[in-house]
């Protein structure tokens, strides 16, 4: 009797057990790989590799995501360099961001708006242009926990 009752309970909860069983297996893989890849940016909001952004642009040369990631890559290079080379990276970053914005002006990707505003500040664009970029960021993502782009710049020690 108890065995039948146990099997009945097992049957009723089987979908949930299968779902979370698979989840536990995949999660254990993720937890293990976190230690090996702690230096690599993980997550959907971060650039993964230059190969990935290039692949997206190979599949679709107007790819919003591909251009955004190329822009982020150039911005990271800008942060690591100084002088004329840095200015070139910044210009390249702006170029890719503007391509991404052209394709999808109201895309649901916050970083595109945020970093674009930062780039405009760093490139000493007129205040009106900067204000508009920051307003675009804030109006699309009012709950953003990112700091004001100007504070970001001062904290990172980036000079406009």
């Amino acid at each position: 009797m108890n065995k039948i009752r146990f099997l009945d309970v097992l049957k009723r909860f089987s979908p949930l057990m299968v779902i979370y069983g698979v989840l536990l297996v995949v999660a254990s893989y993720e937890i293990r790989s976190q230690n090996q890849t702690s230096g690599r940016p993980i997550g959907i909001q971060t650039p993964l590799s230059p190969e990935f952004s290039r692949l997206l642009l190979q599949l679709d040369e107007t790819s919003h995501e591909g251009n955004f990631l190329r822009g982020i890559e150039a911005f990271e290079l800008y942060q690591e360099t100084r002088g004329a080379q840095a200015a070139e990276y910044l210009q390249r970053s702006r170029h890719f961001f503007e391509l991404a914005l052209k394709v999808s002006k109201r895309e649901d990707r916050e970083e595109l708006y945020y970093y674009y505003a930062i780039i405009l500040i760093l490139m000493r664009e007129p205040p009106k242009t900067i204000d508009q970029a920051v307003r675009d960021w804030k109006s699309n993502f009012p709950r953003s926990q990112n700091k004001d782009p100007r504070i970001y710049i001062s904290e990172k020690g980036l000079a406009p």
Partner: protein
Amino acid sequence: MFRNGYILSWREDMVWFVALPFLAFAAAHGCKIWLPAVAVASVTLWITVPHQFATWIRAYGFRDEFSQWKDRLLVGPIVIFGMSLLGLKYAPLTTFLLVTLWDHQHSLMQQYGFSRIYDFKGRSGAPSTGRFDLLLNWVLFIHLIVTAPLFTELWVREAYNWGIEIGKSGVETVHFVSWMMVTVYGAIYVYHVVKSLWNGYPVNPQKYIFLFASYFLWYSLAWQTNSFLVYAIGSKLMHGIQYIVIVFWYIRRKVERTQVRTGLLASVTRPGNVKGFILLSLCYAAVFNMVVGRGLEEFGFGVVNFTVPYDNIAELGLRSMTYVAGFDLYSAALIQSMGLIHYYFDSFIWKVRDVNIQKGL
């Protein structure tokens, strides 16, 4: 050969199950043109959250159905909330994948469920049509996820996240296989329909009109836009509104047939009290939004925005609004759990073959 059957009535089916996807398509594009990205959060607040509320009153509202699924209705939410909390903390990528995949599965199963109701109402289709319909929905939806540019980016990104660095030829191969799958299964499905007709089983044309409208929305949004915002808004509108409509009518019909005339369910679903039902759902959404600490901007589709242009002005010493990080974790877990519990309940409370459920249809 053809036998029409409607879920509600000819007129109401036209509105909710045929025209709605096209209206959702227009609304999604309208949001993209005129509203900021926060609009998707507003649609979630005013449509998705109330549709989850509809699940709660549908699942917990009838004594007989509550007894039927008592253990799952009590244990399920506890397990799901606990696992969401642990998942977000220790394996966020896996948890994100679970929510995304279950969400997609839930969406296609809803459309499959409606197609089953159409056959139930029209007394149409062969005994095996249910299985063929299920596979048809899976094939069409998987094909959408695999080949649409919007989703190709997503699964390629996830593949990279998991260390599978697929190249351009790899992506093209996957696309080709998917197209082959659709072609082959399409032929098999047409053969099944013709064979069913040959054997004297009628076809309900309304089912196919409904499926066409649903997949028109998904395919056109995923292929014609490169915006998750547009896809999410269109998809949420169709899914949420159709669900609320079927729950409202299910409760109302069941109340009428089982002569349960007292209580909240009878009150909010009695003829002429649609406003009461909607109001109750919206109150739930508003309270839920406040409980999880979401912003007031989400109430107004971003049109009313309290944080523009700045919420922090360094020159004046005004700091940005901050949230308690720990509370955010619980909020995120609660938001995800509500969706997952809704998916879970729907996987067993809508079996058309169940005589008890047929009373409400």
